């Protein structure tokens, strides 16, 4: 009985029975579309999991967005060392379904770690982090020296 586990009406799309295999094929297809980001995801299939990160920069801040769905706030660690921001922690699986029959197991659990080098000096005391809807947002304010200066030049 594997009804629920079927993922598309067979008439509409090619029937693809094994989820993980399908994902792998999809990952391989995508690898050719956008090599860099997807490479990360492909490695993830082989060696646990690596959360995806977006990084933005404006004149005052660096902003990082880390996808950590289903992680507990207290299981996320952030540290800044020598201009490298390290995000690590653990996503724990719940034991409550351990005795049940597993139809699909596509989610990854266990430890994760990523280190991002921050391109300009930031003030460590003013770093803010917020965890909402499974996304960790870290705001790193640049130090005064690192902010772009606007120098007015008077042409006389």
């Amino acid at each position, binding site marked *: 009985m594997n009804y629920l586990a079927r993922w598309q009406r067979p008439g509409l799309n090619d029937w693809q029975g094994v989820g993980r295999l399908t994902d792998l094929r999809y990952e391989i297809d*995508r690898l050719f579309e956008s090599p860099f980001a997807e490479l990360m995801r492909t490695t993830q299939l082989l060696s646990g999991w690596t959360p995806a990160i977006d990084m933005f*920069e404006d004149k005052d801040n660096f902003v990082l967005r880390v996808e950590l*769905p289903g992680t507990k706030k207290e299981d996320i660690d952030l540290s800044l060392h020598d201009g490298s921001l390290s995000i690590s922690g653990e996503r724990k699986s719940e034991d409550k379904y351990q005795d049940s029959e*597993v139809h699909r197991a596509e989610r990854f659990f266990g430890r994760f770690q990523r280190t991002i080098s921050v391109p300009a000096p930031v003030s460590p005391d003013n770093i803010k982090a917020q965890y909402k809807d499974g996304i960790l947002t870290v705001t790193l304010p640049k130090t005064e020296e690192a902010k772009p200066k606007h120098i007015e030049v008077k042409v006389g």
Partner: protein
Amino acid sequence: MKATLEKEPRLTGNNNQRQEFVAPPVNIFETRDGYVLEAEMPGVNKEGLEVTLEGNEVTIVGRRSTESVSGEALFRECGRADYRRVFDLDPAIDTGKVAARMEQGILTLTLPKSERVKPRKITVSD
């Protein structure tokens, strides 16, 4: 390989505007009482979630409510497409009792089996 990609259920044509969906990874467990489905949809909250039961199918759609960040993107790895995935339902599921919960980007869908089909112990009377 391109041609195969076009047929992926994750890419759905939407009249003239092409909308891209990504299938969220799921875990599905079956217990005596029913099924539990967990789907990972970071960036989706209660308001962006749509669970539709129709016939013997359940469709999960999650729309991201992630606010855009000002400034220049130094790198982007997070997907921006919304989530969508369709499952056929076991006829044993009591569709009137399906419940959904959204917590930190994880959808937990509880699909109880109807009383009729649950395994039941019959005590033998003397």
